């Protein structure tokens, strides 16, 4: 509760000083609008923002789901098959040295202007954090547990199911939370590069028409969406997996 009050106060004071600064310095509104005019623009365009938000939310949720599933499958494959570890891991690390931004135009070229290229963008950006976090958890299962399992003559499959996977759930959760922060970035980058709908598209559009207040309204909407998504996912993970997450 105290934390929420602090955050609200921080934002209110930022908005206050922003409003104050703009009123004193009086820059042209297309350079920096006041928070007040952003709010007005948000009200006037609320339907527009809502429609474009829906598109972005759908992209994010599909990308997040597929990206998390793919990441988990990859991590399990890396853990189970030594050969996969030798071949895939260098490949994965190499793929991370290419900035995702750089391949966004390619994705648009290959997959078109629709939702697919944005979903793939989101998948690409969250796939590695999920894989890496989950695999770290799996491979860091304490040796003592595995020794105990060996004296108990546990099978590899059951050791994975009852020891390694439960042990890696906290790391997997960190990976998923990270993914929920990255996924909106992926979707919006995709929309910037080429699209006809979505919050990213709306931002580019507003920017091009010098409607900076709409641009800010979209930006704040995206921010609130991302934070809500992160909060929701953290909460869901916490209540559904609490027994794996406590010390």
């Amino acid at each position: 509760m105290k934390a929420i009050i602090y955050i609200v106060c921080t934002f209110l004071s930022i908005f206050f000083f922003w409003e104050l600064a703009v009123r004193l310095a009086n820059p042209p509104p297309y350079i920096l609008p006041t928070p007040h005019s952003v709010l007005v623009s948000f009200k006037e365009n609320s339907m527009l923002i809502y429609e474009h938000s829906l598109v972005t939310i759908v992209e994010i949720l599909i990308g997040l789901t597929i990206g998390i599933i793919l990441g988990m499958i990859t991590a399990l494959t890396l853990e189970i098959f030594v050969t996969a570890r030798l071949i895939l891991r260098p490949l994965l690390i190499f793929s991370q040295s290419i900035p995702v931004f750089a391949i966004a135009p390619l994705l648009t070229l290959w997959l078109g202007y629709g939702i697919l290229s944005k979903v793939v963008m989101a998948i690409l950006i969250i796939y590695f954090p999920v894989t890496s976090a989950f695999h770290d958890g799996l491979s860091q299962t304490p040796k003592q547990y595995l020794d105990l399992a060996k004296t108990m003559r546990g099978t590899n499959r059951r050791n994975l199911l009852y020891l390694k996977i439960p042990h890696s759930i906290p790391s997997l959760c960190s990976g998923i939370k990270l993914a929920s922060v990255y996924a909106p970035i992926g979707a919006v980058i995709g929309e910037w590069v080429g699209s006809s709908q979505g919050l990213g598209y709306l931002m580019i559009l507003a920017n091009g028409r010098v409607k900076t207040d709409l641009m800010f309204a979209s930006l704040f909407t995206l921010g609130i969406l991302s934070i809500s998504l992160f909060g929701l996912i953290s909460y869901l993970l916490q209540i559904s997996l609490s027994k794996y997450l406590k010390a």
Partner: protein
Amino acid sequence: MMSSTSPSIELVGSVRSESEVLFGDLQLAVKANQWTCLLGSSGIGKSTILRLIAGLPTHVKLDGSIKSNDHLPISNRVSYMAQNDLLIPWATISDNVSLGNKLRGEKFSSEKKLKIIEKVGLMDHKKKYPFQLSGGQRQRAALARTLMENTPIVLLDEPFGSLDSNTREEMIDLTFESLKGKTVLFVTHDPHEAARLCESIYILGRQKTASNNCLKPPFPKTYSDKLVFDLQYSLLEKIKSNRS
């Protein structure tokens, strides 16, 4: 399912790591139905010998053999209990007790499990998680897990090491009583525990591993037994001389 008679085990040979010889000429006879103690200062490699017998990976190589008197494999009828209780933090005490059954994918009698949990005095705690228990209770749970495995050979790696003295007393009695009829190899650095519990005692040393005089049955001896103190003293002297 598992052979009910406990075998005796003989370990003969030398143990070396890449850089040094740990034990030059080792001859251990772990007799059936009694406690055998490996005594030695910390870091000498007591646990390594347990790992060799349990068939767990080690950093050493054994030139020699580990055999049982019934010529059956050893590592698949061993259970292991260490100073660290190794309880799975996300599973209840009850689920921890039957972990072995779960990992082998075999059915088990929950009646038997409850009996064991009752025996170690954790009936009121069986639905709790390990972090909700005290150190002594956790070690009891580890004992219950070992009893649930019901293997003829039990390897104990300083299982009382982290307990306070009251809890330790209770735990020693309970463990000794409940492991009757099994072949127990007990690793400790505490000569007092060795004297009280073991019918054979080996003092591990780099150059030689000596078999030592022990007290006569019945075991366990009481904490204040004068003979225990005498033996403890002479064991301590030998550990010291072995180290130098």
